[in-house]
């Protein structure tokens, strides 16, 4: 069990703000941390890692990582941290990156096998692709045999296909080791696939906390389909109006009445939903 109660004044992009977080995390839980940029997600992760100071307390099992008396340095916390920019040691091969953390060769072999990197262990990081580097970074974090694995948007720099592959590997590692994990992510499908719990931060406070399905599904009432998108354009075609909406990576045309068209402004976030609809998935 991890008990977090922290306070910190932040000078974010949106001016001064108080980060105030009360959180209990169960052992083995996979928690996704979501929220707009500047809401304090990365800072929360860095405080948990001991890389930034804060007031309050962090208790992990029987250990006190932070209390009024002081703070345990990052060296002694036994955590794993995966950075968005990989942050590998460029002077060391893949294998050396892992063994630098912990000289356990068997564990390194096992991790490299799970992430299908065994035949690349003698290569230097800068000869690997982004996806491969992030896998090495993940293995390196696991080498520390962490009590808590922290990941700061680990997959956001990768293309969609590579994301899916890595999501599977993260899932596999989590099943294998059962490490309590906190991952910052903006991608709803990623959160849904990986996390057992979502915490949404807003201006430094927890705005929502629950299971991914409850929080991420946007349908209400009898709606069958509902998508959030950005309105790109409205044009008049004969007697009707056609709106172009960008949903995810796709553009969709939606017919709207002239009444509806009046209330819409280009650039705003809209929900596209439908009822009594029998879709076919081909």
């Amino acid at each position: 069990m991890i008990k977090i109660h922290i306070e910190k004044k932040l000078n974010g992009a949106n001016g001064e703000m108080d980060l105030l977080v009360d959180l209990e995390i169960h052992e083995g839980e996979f928690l996704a941390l979501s929220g707009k940029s500047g809401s304090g997600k990365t800072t929360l992760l860095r405080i948990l890692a001991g890389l930034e100071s804060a007031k309050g307390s962090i208790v992990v099992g029987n250990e006190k990582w932070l209390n009024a008396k002081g703070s345990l340095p990052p060296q002694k916390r036994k955590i794993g941290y995966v950075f968005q920019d990989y942050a590998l040691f460029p002077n060391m091969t893949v294998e050396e990156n892992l063994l630098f953390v912990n000289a356990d060769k068997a564990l390194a072999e096992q991790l490299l096998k799970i992430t299908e990197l065994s035949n690349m262990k003698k290569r230097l990081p800068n000869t690997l692709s982004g996806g491969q580097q992030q896998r090495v970074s993940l293995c390196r974090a696991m080498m520390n045999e962490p009590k808590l694995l922290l990941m700061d948007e680990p997959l956001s720099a990768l293309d969609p296909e590579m994301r899916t592959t890595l999501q599977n590997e993260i899932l596999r590692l989590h099943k294998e080791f059962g490490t309590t994990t906190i991952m910052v992510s903006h991608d709803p499908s990623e959160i849904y696939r990986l996390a057992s719990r979502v915490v949404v931060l807003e201006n430094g406070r927890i705005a929502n906390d629950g299971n991914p399905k409850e929080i991420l599904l946007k349908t209400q009432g009898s709606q069958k389909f509902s998508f959030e998108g950005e309105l790109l354009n409205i044009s008049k075609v004969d007697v009707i109006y056609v709106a172009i909406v960008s949903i995810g990576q796709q553009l969709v045309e939606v017919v709207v009445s002239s009444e509806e068209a009046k209330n819409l402004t280009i650039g705003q976030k809209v929900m596209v939903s439908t009822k009594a609809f029998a879709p076919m998935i081909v």
Partner: protein
Amino acid sequence: MIETLKALEFTPFILSFKLALLTTIILFVIALPLSWYLSQTRSKMKPVLEAITALPIVLPPSVLGFYILWALSQNSPLGAFLEETFGVQLAFSFAGLVVASCFYSLPFMVQPLQGGFESLNRHMLEASYISGKSKVTTLFKVALPNMKPALLTALIITFAHTVGEFGVVLMVGGSIPGETKVASVAIYEMVEIMDYTSAHIYSLIMLIISFTVLLSVYLFNHRQNRKFGSFV
């Protein structure tokens, strides 16, 4: 011509290189923790420390030389203390030259190292701390190996700059043959007594050595950058 070459005295060169080598080693030991601290600190004292470190670049060598000479002489508390306690007199001695050179070349060691440390990916250093590694281990195993060009630049430029110093050396060391008469001072004296042949030879040797040293630094850095690319 051959006669002149045979009669040429190489002691000033040997003295110059001995001085430069000692200065480089001592400064490396001093500048490593200092530049590491400067690169990592968020203290308000940082600009003050940086300004003090950079002073020898802008101060006239005569000013620096004058202060050092005064500090090392028996007229200053420090000089008197050294004389009374250890029985050493640093002014107009080789040891005094080493002390003076360390002040004079300090920025040439600190600035490239600090720049190297600052260009490192902060997350990479943090990843090392999180892996349980101390700051010292991180410095030697992670930071330094990933900034070889900056490291080499610092060492070589400090060495070359010390070989090339003149004003401070003349003020603090004078020109005692075999003790404080380094190559640059020797050349100055040759010109003074209008021995232009020797001055030409000495100057050419200095020019060739300096150019070779600088060329090798730039070639190495060029190759390193190609090999590793710029680090993220």
